[in-house]
């Protein structure tokens, strides 16, 4: 399936970038891992095409803190680009396993993680058991967001 990522992000914006790297300098993901970095992502989209970028697992390293957006002198909505790329990546099956796992869990239980003996722990601290998660509502949202194309649930 081909996805038009430029439907969600105006491609013209990319040409505003002159690679000053203020974004990468502000990127917390770059601090801890060899992420693509916002500048690298834009350059790769321009030079190699986004097809190559969405194959790369590194598009998932962005933590959407939006600092690159704030500091970009050209006011390019970089985090919008990253979200659009990840949408595209997901639809091509490029989703990290752990992320898929928690998505599946979310769809099934309404929560992204299961904590062992949670209710016992809560009781130990004098807290009432957690109310049931609104699974149907969560599933409706996930459906609306098009998650069915990525995941069976």
């Amino acid at each position, binding site marked *: 399936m081909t996805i038009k990522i430029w439907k969600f992000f105006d491609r013209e914006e990319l040409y505003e970038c002159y*690679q*000053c790297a*203020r*974004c990468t*300098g502000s990127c917390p993901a*770059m601090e801890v891992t060899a992420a693509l970095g916002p*500048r690298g992502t834009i350059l790769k989209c321009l030079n190699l095409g986004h097809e190559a970028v969405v194959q790369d697992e590194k598009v998932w390293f962005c933590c959407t803190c939006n*600092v690159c957006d704030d500091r970009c002198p050209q*006011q390019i909505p970089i985090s919008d680009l990253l979200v659009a790329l990840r949408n595209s990546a997901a639809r091509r099956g490029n989703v990290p396993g752990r992320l898929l796992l928690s998505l599946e869990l979310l769809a099934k239980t309404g929560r992204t993680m299961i904590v062992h003996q949670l209710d016992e722990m809560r009781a130990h601290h004098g807290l009432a058991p957690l109310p049931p998660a609104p699974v149907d509502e969560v599933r409706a949202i996930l459906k609306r967001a098009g998650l069915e194309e990525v995941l069976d649930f």
Partner: protein
Amino acid sequence: MSEKTLPKAPRPQMNDLRIGVYVCHCGKNISGTVRCEEVARYAQGLPGVVLARDSLYTCSEPGQEQIKGDIKAHDLNRVVVASCTPRLHEPTFRAACESAGLNPYLLEMANIREHCSWVHLHDKDAATEKAKDLVAMAVSRAGRLAPQTEVTVSVMRKAMVIGGGVAGIQAALDLADAGYKVYLVERSGSIGGRMAQIDKTFPTMDCSICILAPKMSEAGRHPNIELLTLSEVTGVQGHIGNFHVRVLKKARYVTSECTSCADCISVCPQLAPDEFNAGLSIRRGIYIPFAQAVPSTFMIDMNICLNNQGIVACDRCFQACSKKCIDFADRDQELILDVGTIVVATGVDVYDPTSLTELGYGKFPNVITTLEFERLINAGGPSSGELIRPSDRERPKRVAFLQCIGSRSKRSNPYCSNVCCMNTIKDALLIKEHWPDTEITVYYVDIRAFGKGFEDLFQRARREGVTFIRGIPGEIIEDLATDDLTLLGENTLLGTPYRSTVDMVILSVGIKPRQDSELLQRLLNLATDTDGFYMEAHPKLKPVDTTTGGVFIAGAAEGPKDIKDSVTQASAAASRANILMSKGEVKIPAITAGIDPDKCTACGLCARVCPYHAIVGGKEEGLYRVIAAACQGCGACVPECRFGAIDQTHFTESQIVEQIDAALAGDPHKKILAFACNWCSYAGADFAGVSRIQYPHNVRIIRTMCSARVSPAWIERAFTKGAGAVLVSGCHPADCHYNNANQNTARRVERFWRRMEKLGINRDRLRLAWISAAEGAQFAKVIREMEAGLKTIKPAEIENAAKKLFREANKKSDAT
């Protein structure tokens, strides 16, 4: 619509008209597409035409001789040349007419090359028919042409230079040396400007004040220059050759007998940040801006003086002054100065990086700007030329420069500030020269070393060990204990992140238009570009002229530039002003507006739309009148008059109406009538021709000087005559050659749209388009779109709309 509602102009009787038509082949340029002989034969049959010829090159010497000979032999009283654009050869043919004794304003041109043969290359029949139409339009307009004499106005042989930076000083000296009296108006206490603040200049590494100070003192003692410091222009009246400028000269409180002995300084109890040292040091309440200041007279800052407002709380400086030159009774004065020309050299402000919080300027003491650095490293600066960092006054061992701060950014200034790259390289070399062990890193995006000797300097900096890293830090972190700074970023060439710690960071800040540049813009009717700098009359061929006659620009007020370019431009501006003043008079093209005093009701609407304040008068006088010397001939006032009292010479109502009627004489419902302004849209259509961009042939273009001349009555007339569509096109809103007169165009077209909607007429048939002289493709696109829209409209609908408009117009004219 009946003829009676149109202003009447004397039209020569048909048998009085003796029009000669010349259809040019232009080699194969026109005749390759248009059958020129057929067009000439057609022209022969038009009313008033006594002779029509076609020639291979009408602009050639034999071609011109032919016209001259015919004027004499056949007693021609109008000449129509169908050839290229009037923007090219109108002066040629006007000169030919004049030399044969025919008034040059009796020439009319039909543009059958750029607007016809070149854009309809593949349809000879249609192109020939269009050429016939264009010739018929020109012939009908020619019948209404009247001889004109160009008015001359005298030019006063005095000049004013506003701004006493290096550009202003240079312009003033050039004009003064040429023998003119010059008023040099400077806002601060001394001339010198930004250049006086800078330590060294690039690429030669000259000492800045050493080369500037001689010029400053020359300007100070020049017999032809009257120096007005602490002075500001507050009002400008008049026009080219005769400006009356109001100048507010603020009180200095120290007389010119001051010998700048500085005895007063030590006794003054009041302190303030020293502006000249970028706030890095303090000065007293009585002070001189800097040691080399011209005039070398002290001044009192009344904002902090204890003796303010006549309350004598302190007179220590008065007591200390042995020459008794302190005068607390000094008052602001208002001067009215009459000058013939004005040079604007108001310079620039420096970008304040405080708003870029991630860089910590203003929060971390060791982050400074390049201007502050210039003062720090200058021997006359606060540290006497020692490089120290503000937090502990120790010499920094590791220095980082950050480029493009406040430039090339939509968050601040979108343009490149032009000087910062070379300034940083120069500063880096200065540090290396004095303290070679200093580690210097320059974080840049692109190094723009474009000028003479710039690349050499860049290479030298690299050889001397300055490190250049491509990638601006995203963030600066301060170490609270040591005040050292850590830069986080990415080396984009290596593709690796860096985290480097330095002792001091210098932000290479950009430059921006003066904060209050709008004031002078309003007073002098200047135009500004999208960045806020004053705009030149033409970016290539009139780089120091402004859109206001007699006013010139120099230096960075026109756009970011270095010292050399500022001086070059200042000399150019002075020379342009000199040309006007040495001639002593100036000819105004006879395209000005004129008001019929009998019809004028003194409502004042015209004066309100005039972009040049050229219309004066009032209710008391009972009428308004146009000052011909100030009128630039845009014609924006003409459609504004509800009483038909105004008309524009050489672009009269009756001339244009003739053109409209001729254009729509046959098959009007298939045609697009286009009004194009001389400077942008007509030139854009010309450009489409030069680029051979093909577009539908049913468009007929009528030229006006400004789109604001286009009267709603013309649009109405076109539609009542059954025109399929009408295009009104002008310069892009900020680029209007007549000081945004085209905002009137937009207003009038919008009003016409509303009228169309009210009458149930398809408003898409009237289009407003902004097309610049470079947008030939855009012009072609607009015409193609309009043609496509026209295809969907049935002739019956056009006829119906024409009737509705006609009825409504008649109802209106009956009411009045």
